[in-house]
Every structure is written in structure tokens, then in C-alpha cells.
């Protein structure tokens, strides 16, 4: 089978989208959740001595959590929409 024929059989556009979505979602959610942990731990460390810095870290944690929740919500709603 020639490469051209194989390309016609396999929908490369769809496969590329699968790769793209998996990379963005898998790595993006990992970064966001790592930031949640980092923000929460740092906020706890600085809570007494540097409350402003602790607040900034807490904000990063909350933002990370929102990104994770949004990614999950978007994924499920996309599945349901098809």
C-alpha cells in the first residue's frame, strides 16, 4: 500500500486533533494542578509572617483550581455535545 493510499484511509486531521487535545489537556491540567499544590503550600508557609505574599500564593492556587475545573467541565460538555 502506498503512503498516499494510507493517508486517504487514515484521517490524519482527526488524529492530529486527538494528539493536540491530549497534549494540551494532559499537560495543561498537570501544570494547573501543580500550581494549586505549590500555591497552597506556599500560602500556608507565609500565612503568619507575610500575609500579602500568602494571599498571592492562595490566589495562584485558586486560579489553578479554576483552570482544572474548567478543563474538566469543557471536556465533558464537548463529549455530551456530539
Amino acid at each position, binding site marked *: 500500500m502506498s503512503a498516499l493510499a494510507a493517508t486517504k484511509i*487514515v484521517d490524519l486531521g482527526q488524529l492530529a486533533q*486527538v494528539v493536540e487535545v*491530549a497534549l494540551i489537556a*494532559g*499537560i495543561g491540567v498537570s501544570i494547573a494542578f*501543580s500550581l494549586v499544590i505549590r500555591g497552597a*503550600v506556599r500560602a*500556608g508557609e507565609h500565612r503568619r509572617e507575610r500575609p500579602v505574599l500568602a494571599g498571592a500564593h492562595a490566589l495562584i492556587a485558586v486560579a489553578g483550581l479554576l483552570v482544572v475545573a474548567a478543563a474538566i467541565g469543557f471536556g465533558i460538555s*464537548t*463529549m455530551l455535545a456530539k
Partner: protein
Amino acid sequence: MGSDLILYIVVATALAFDFTNGFHDTANVVATTISTRALPPRVAVTLAAILNFVGAFLSLAVAATIAKDIVDQSLVTTTVVFAGLVGAIVWNLVTWYFGLPSSSSHALVGGVVGSMLAAHGTAAVQFDGLLGKVIVPALIAPVLAFAVAGIAILVCYRVVGRLAPGPVNRGFRLGQVLSGQMLALAHGTNDAQKTMGVITLALIANGNLAKDASVPTWVVISAATAIALGTYIGGWRIIKTMGSRIIKMDPAQGFAAQGAGAATILAATHFGYPLSTTHVISGGVMGAGAAKRLSAVRWGVAGNIVVAWLLTLPCAALVGGVVYGVTRVFGGGAAGPVVVVLAGLALMVYVFVRRFQRGVAITTTAEGTRA
């Protein structure tokens, strides 16, 4: 009457396959959660069963692929579907017995293709669909999960690198509760649909549904229930292989592996690719391990899994073809499937009794090391 009896047998066999699919595959879903102690085994399995049930209702794209894109619908008979299912179940049980996490999905596709080849020859198989919708995605998916998990774990370590390990591990264990459930949801939506597709194929072959009909609601509910029950009753032996024999994981690695698996499966399901959860989570587990340290992965065990992957399609096809031949010996009616079912049930009881006489493997992996 005879054809209806075969249809009932096919539906029962398909649900039995779905049950073994949950029994066999979902262990892969919860293995990392259990091995890092993010959740106790029973809780992890219960949650996975619930999410499998819910996931089955999310999409029908994979069911459509199984019903329309792999074999020529107009040549399918209920006996062909039955023989394909038996081929898949037999291969599932063989790999389960030996603790090899092979693919239930590819066993199902292999079984149906094998019985179609035995019944009608090569013209009855849509090799374009088989290549484009099953084989190529099957090759890409584990590599993709490997890469995503590998990059994800490196990023995770980079972000939390200087923090004390205690709270970081607690955080990622919490994250694993989430990523594990997403993986269970993804598993439910991809794997339960394969059974839905096969039952729909049998209903069309028997004249109960039009060719372009959608999957009936009762099929969705029964497939969801069967896979959830199979999940709950569990595949402890496979859990042992996936959770600890491939790699010893920390919670961050477990989170990265599960997140990569869930993202890959959900993305593929959206386009109707019938992926193997086993392939994907194996790729994720190995990627998360290899990114940290190549020697952390037990490559011998990983090699055995690859061999099981390579053997699944041809072996399930072979069994499917042989079973079709056996049913034809008893004529075109229901006698052949009935004989095969009775023989299969006897074999399954024997295998289960032998298996459970050996004890429950998970206690040596998660709970047994807790003290």
C-alpha cells in the same frame, strides 16, 4: 424463533463480555490510585464502577464505529457476532488468568473480524476502517499517553520541586482521586460503547433495527450496568501487574499517568476511535516512570504486555473463526451457539474456581505494605 434465540444469546454474551471488560480493564484504571495509596482499593474500585456507569452515557461515537466501520453490515449474522464475542471473551480470560493486561477492545474487534473472515472471507471485512479507525489509533495512543505523561511529570516536578515532599504527595494524592475518576469516566465512555456497538450490530443483523438506526436506550443502560458490575467485582490480579510490577510510582507520577490517559481516551472517544484503556494507561504509566528514571520501569514486564498487545488481534480473530466453525458444525440454528455457551460456562467456572483458590493478589501490593 431460532434467530430470536440466537439474538438473546448474543445479547447475553455481549453483556458477559462487557462484564469481563470491566473485570479485566478497569483494574488498569484504579491500579495507580491504589499503588500510591491515594484511595483504599475497595473505595477506588467502587468509585470507578460508578464513573464507568456514568461514562457509558456520554457518547455514542465509538459504538457507531464498531457497528458500521469495521465489517460489512449487510453480511453480518447473529452467529457471526456471537462467535466474535466468544473469541474476545476467551482471549480476555486467558490474559486475565496469566495477569497480562492486554486489550479487551482489540480482542472484541479481532474476534468479530475473525468470525467474519471465517463466514464470508476477506470481502466482508472493511480493512480501511480496521486500519484507519483501530490499528493506527492503537499504535498512536500508547505513544501519545507515554509522551503526555512524560512531559507532564517533568513539568510537575519542576513546579513543585523545592517544596517539602509531605504536602506535595498529599496534594497529588488528592489530585489522583480526581484524575483516577476522570480515567474511569473515559474508560466507561469508550469501552461500554464497544458492547453497545456489537449489540446494535446483532439487532440490525436480526432485522430488529434499521441499518441507520441509533443505539437503543435499553442497550446503553444494560451495557453501562454490565461494565460497572464487572468493574466492581474487580480484576485484582491485573491491578497487581499495572500498579507495582511495571513501575513503583509516587503520587505525582500516578496523577500524570492518569491525567495523560484520561486526556488521550476522551479525545479519541470524541472522534469515535475504539481505543484500549489498557494500552493507554500502560503508556502513561511507563511515560511517567521513564521521564524520572529509565531504569525505574520494569521493561521485562512492559515487554510481556507488548507481546500480549501484538497477539490480541490475531489470537482473538483465530478463536472467533474457530468458534464460528464449531457453531456451523451444528447447523445454522441456535444449537451451535447453545453448545458453545454451555461449554464456555463450564470452562469459566473451572477457571474462576482455580483463580480464587490462589487468593487475592492486591493484598500483597497496596494493603499488605501499609503496615
